[in-house]
């Protein structure tokens, strides 16, 4: 989970803040204006980092909201009077948020490369709206004649045309934005966003409506960008379509990466570094001074002139060198010096109250289930019942349709025909997170836990899913029973307290599997659907997890696919044999072992051996 900044980072940030506060006392108007621009860019890029670094959505159209914010100030400003900033700022934020809600509801449907391109296209759409039409001066842009003023009645509180006052306002806004986002990311809501970044399928399987979460973070980021846009328009009092264009979006991405995505403070450093480098490269005097360190004055002047003349080429090379040498940006550099974060001390857990009440597990019934991919029928008319509080194994040769079968059960695939009932309630064809909310939790073949989170944080995330308020912004709203649930789940899955505060990335494969189970329990699942929970395990780990499954069946129903025949025949109460998408047999392990049909179709030599 995104940690609070390390002491070294805090020192750097405090030094920068101190410098900024002192700047108006020694810097000229040019420096002040540049610094104001950097502050505003800082707000813009940390809002983008919420998308890129936290939720993991690379938006290439974020400037759309920045530009809309800027244009909103033009729209709301009277021709020859000042707009009230108390109105202008909320208006810009609201405009950006409303547009983001509309755009996001489409864009968030896509992922990865498609999301990048879709956001790019929407950004260009906004750009051409202002570029191709006569709205607000078209290609020429438009002027805001009088800067906004914060005023109540006739009382002026802060006039944006006062450069120093405006600079301090932007500085305060940047600090506030940073603190606000840092807080947001560390709330239960933000934890889910980080979970989505690292493993969206897992989050969906835990019962989170990931679409809604992603859309919410998209809208929040856009609103913040809109806020930055309003401030930006107030610097020069000029807006142009280019503000919404893809170059502006690209620059913002560049600042985020340059500074270090996913740290929130990094992008601000990126904005500072980028602007400083750009200014230096544009100025032949500063460049000549730099080159004169290596060469005589004439040569230095000549070199400086050349570079300043083609400064954007030099900037290009600078960026390439940075991205190749320091892929984690400035923040990565600082964090390397700051060293490893100290591990949080594991909390003491009160011993369990002893008696374990038998929770009500769930019954799953499948009737005449069919799933076809075009002409290929992967699951063909399977009817089977999984009574509660038992371990049910699904076996079958490769390509028998086992994974398709449980994908349909968990909602990852829609059934072509037939019904799936959980506790007599039809769930076939519902969305995965809806099914998960109803108590069916699943694991995937590839272990997927949220690697940068500790085991306990993973469970916290899972527990959060079972309590209905979807977006939660405060840890205070955490319920007492949530903590209990987590400790119980960790214990039930056999994760010892001293391992619970280790990052999931540092756990063994077996422990990660146990953690998946712990997460499912913490999410409140009463029926666990496990896809090869034993794959890749050594005999000792296999034994441990099998015993765990037996124990869990006391208050859960367990359905698992498994290839390890010895383990599953030992652990399961019933076995279901699928061959070529059809149900071949269903019964106790003894019945399956003695079934001639099964032996012939599937077990082959193994069956012969087992007989002997």
């Amino acid at each position, binding site marked *: 989970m995104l940690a609070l900044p390390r002491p070294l980072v805090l020192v750097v940030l405090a030094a920068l803040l101190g410098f900024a506060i002192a700047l108006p006392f020694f810097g000229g108007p040019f420096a002040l204006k540049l610094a104001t621009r950097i502050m505003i860019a800082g707000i813009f890029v940390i809002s983008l980092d919420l998308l*890129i670094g936290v939720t993991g959505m*690379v938006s*290439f159209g974020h400037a759309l909201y920045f530009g809309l914010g800027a244009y909103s100030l033009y729209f709301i400003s009277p021709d020859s009077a000042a707009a009230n900033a108390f109105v202008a700022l909320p208006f810009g934020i609201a405009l950006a948020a409303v547009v983001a809600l509309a755009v996001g509801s*489409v864009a968030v*449907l*896509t*992922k*990865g*490369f*498609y999301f*990048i*391109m*879709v956001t*790019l*296209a*929407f950004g*260009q*759409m906004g750009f*051409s*709206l202002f570029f*191709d*039409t006569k709205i607000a001066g078209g290609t020429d842009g438009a002027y805001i004649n009088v800067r906004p003023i914060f005023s109540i009645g006739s009382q002026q509180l802060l006039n944006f045309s006062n450069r120093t006052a405006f600079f301090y306002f932007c500085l305060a806004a940047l600090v506030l934005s940073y603190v606000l986002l840092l807080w947001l990311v560390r709330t239960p809501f933000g934890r889910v966003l980080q979970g989505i970044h690292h493993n969206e399928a897992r989050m969906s399987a835990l019962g989170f409506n990931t679409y809604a979460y992603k859309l919410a973070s998209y809208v929040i980021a856009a609103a913040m960008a809109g806020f930055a846009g309003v401030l930006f328009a107030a610097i020069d009092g000029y807006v142009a379509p280019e503000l919404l264009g*893809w170059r502006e979006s*690209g620059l913002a*991405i*560049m600042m*985020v*990466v*340059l500074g270090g*995505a996913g740290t929130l403070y990094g992008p601000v450093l990126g904005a500072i570094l980028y602007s400083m480098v750009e200014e230096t490269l544009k100025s032949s005097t500063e460049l000549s001074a730099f080159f004169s360190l290596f060469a005589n004055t004439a040569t230095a002047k000549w070199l400086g002139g050349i570079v300043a003349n*083609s400064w*954007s*080429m030099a*900037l*290009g*090379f600078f*960026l*390439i060198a940075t*991205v*190749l040498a320091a*892929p984690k940006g400035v923040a990565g550099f600082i964090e390397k010096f700051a060293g490893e974060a100290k591990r949080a001390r594991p909390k003491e857990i009160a011993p369990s109250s002893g008696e374990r009440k038998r929770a009500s597990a769930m019954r799953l019934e499948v009737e005449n289930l069919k799933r076809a991919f075009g002409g290929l029928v992967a699951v063909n008319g399977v009817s089977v019942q999984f009574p509660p509080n038992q371990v049910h194994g699904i076996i079958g040769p490769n390509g028998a349709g086992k994974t398709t079968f449980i994908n349909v059960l968990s909602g990852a695939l829609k059934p072509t025909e037939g019904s799936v009932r959980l506790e007599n309630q039809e769930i076939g064809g519902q969305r995965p997170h809806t099914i998960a909310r109803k108590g069916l939790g699943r694991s995937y073949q590839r272990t997927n836990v949220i690697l940068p989170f500790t085991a306990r944080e993973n469970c916290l995330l899972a527990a959060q899913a079972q309590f209905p308020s979807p977006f939660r912004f405060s840890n205070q709203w955490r319920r007492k029973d949530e903590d209990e649930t987590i400790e119980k789940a960790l214990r039930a899955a056999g994760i010892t307290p001293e391992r619970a505060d280790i990052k999931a990335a540092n756990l063994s494969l077996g422990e990660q599997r146990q953690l998946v189970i712990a997460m499912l329990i913490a999410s409140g699942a009463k029926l666990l659907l496990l896809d090869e929970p034993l794959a890749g395990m050594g005999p000792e780990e296999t034994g441990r997890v099998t015993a765990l499954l037996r124990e869990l069946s006391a208050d859960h129903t367990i359905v698992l696919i498994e290839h390890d025949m010895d383990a599953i025949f030992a652990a399961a109460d019933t076995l279901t044999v699928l061959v070529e998408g059809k149900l071949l047999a269903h019964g106790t392990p003894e019945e399956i072992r003695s079934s001639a049909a099964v032996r012939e179709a599937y077990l082959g030599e193994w069956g012969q051996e087992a007989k002997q």
Partner: protein
Amino acid sequence: MDLALIQLLNGVQYGLLIFLAASGLTLVFGIMGVINLSHGSFYMLGAYCALTLTQFTGDIFLSLLLGVPLAFVFGVIIEWLFIRRLYDRDHLQQVLLTFALILIFNEAQKLLWGSHPHSVPVPGYLQGGFKISELLTYPYYRVAVAAFCVALALGMMFVIQKTRIGRVIRAGESNREMVEALGIDSRLLFRFVFAAGVALAATAGIVAAPLESVYPGIGEPILIISFVVVVIGGIGSIKGAFLGAILIGVADALGKVYFPAFSSSVVYALMAAVLIARPGGLFGRAA
């Protein structure tokens, strides 16, 4: 009516040109997993190449013969210098590095050719056009460009469907690891695919040069529109890119007639509609 017909023809012809650029982009992303923002720069490179070479050779088609191999070699160099360092990196760093390449190419263009627009002559034997009505003619050169693009598209489909290299490309597109496991040197494959993409974009730039003036930043609209085409067609699909390009070309041309104020938005609206219906594009794997 005649205007609409002409715009329809222009749309198809524009679509064919976009296809050349977009096919390179879709291959580079589909096979190498690299988002290449500098693709539009290679189109620009082609256009300026046409400008300079035509001054020497006097004929755009001779320039094409010289320019395409040059572009291919240039592609090999760029891949070797920069792009190969991106294969193991995430999208974000690819976006950043190729964005930086745009800055470099634009500046290089300014240094070499200046920032004034130039025009490239249509060869003498293709001056004039077909008479459509009393007032309207359709230029021979546009017809020649369309025919050339169709021939090239057919050639590409033949190479991809029927030849050994095509089979490797198709395999690489659906499963990169597997191709390596089968003993094909993916470094060579990637270098070839990237250079071929550069050559295709440059080809589009060269043949388009006489159609419009050659100016700085000429590649950027092509880059954006190519991305739209790739998304509509589905990543990695040549067939999808072809269909998407024609669709976009026609939508854009007709949009200019019927919704002049929102002509560029028509294209993006079309893309949004396709994505809502099929999030993986027309011929793409599910995203």
